[in-house]
């Protein structure tokens, strides 16, 4: 299922993701903040995620490690800034491979008819940080058309 939507707001250096889950809000909230369950969803399937620290309270720290088959290790950490059950968590995110570049994730949960809409607003310190964190392949297709331009502009300007 791919019901996520992503909206990038270039001027504010934010990215907003939303996703609807067929589950009550309490359950989504508890699941997302359960250290024992983090390894089951937080990382990509091809990597093993280990929770080293997860102190879910304002000012509490978290640190996760991910290992690939070749034994390479990637570490992520952050701090909880706000933990307000059942609908709001604000935490920071840092990839230790690119230290010092901290993003802030604002998670909001809304329940409607037994379904929960999860909204994650990620605020990056700069565009450079986004790329450093993601280490994404920039080998995007070199083709461009006016149609794609129009589509993308509509997407990023939230039309």
């Amino acid at each position, binding site marked *: *299922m*791919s019901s*996520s939507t*992503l909206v*990038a707001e*270039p*001027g504010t*250096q934010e*990215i907003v*993701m939303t*996703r609807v*889950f*067929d*589950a*009550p809000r*309490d*359950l*989504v909230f*508890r*699941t*997302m903040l359960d250290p024992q*369950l983090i390894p*089951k*969803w*937080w*990382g*990509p*399937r091809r990597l093993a995620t280990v929770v080293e620290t997860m102190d879910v309270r304002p000012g509490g720290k978290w640190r996760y490690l991910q290992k690939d088959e070749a034994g390479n290790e990637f570490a992520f950490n952050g701090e909880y800034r706000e933990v307000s059950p059942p609908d709001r968590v604000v935490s920071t995110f840092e990839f230790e491979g690119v230290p010092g570049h901290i993003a802030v994730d604002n998670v909001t949960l809304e329940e409607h008819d037994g379904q929960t809409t*999860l909204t*994650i607003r990620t605020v990056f310190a*700069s*565009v*450079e940080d*986004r*790329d*450093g964190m*993601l280490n*994404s*392949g*920039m*080998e*995007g*297709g*070199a*083709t*461009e*058309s*006016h149609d*794609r*331009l*129009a589509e*993308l*502009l509509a997407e*990023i*300007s939230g039309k």
Partner: protein
Amino acid sequence: MVQYQSLDRTFSALSDPTRRVILDRLGRGPASISDLAEPLDMTLTGMKKHVRILEDAHFVTTEKVGRTRVCRLGPAQHEGLPSGGREPLGELEAWMESFRQMWEERLDRLDDLLQDIKHQSPDNRHDS
């Protein structure tokens, strides 16, 4: 690092609503600086500045024709560009796609997990 700088330029070029209007307009065909400035009620100098930023980010190319400067969308003029010539929206799109995929996988897994938990405990265990 070069990639980051160029992506940075891409985002900041697009961050301004006026520049998005300019791109939208140029998507319908070339226009002079004054063609662009008029509907927006802008000075020619102000418009030149915006066009310059879009030019630096490789969205737009300009060409002097007689006394006017004709602006058009850049990338479409460079089909068959050598591989070194990256197009700004290609990069932006690739970056957004990789971010989307990361979250997509994470949230797919969370979804699976929530369904498992729900099935294990039909009353959704409001305690815990």
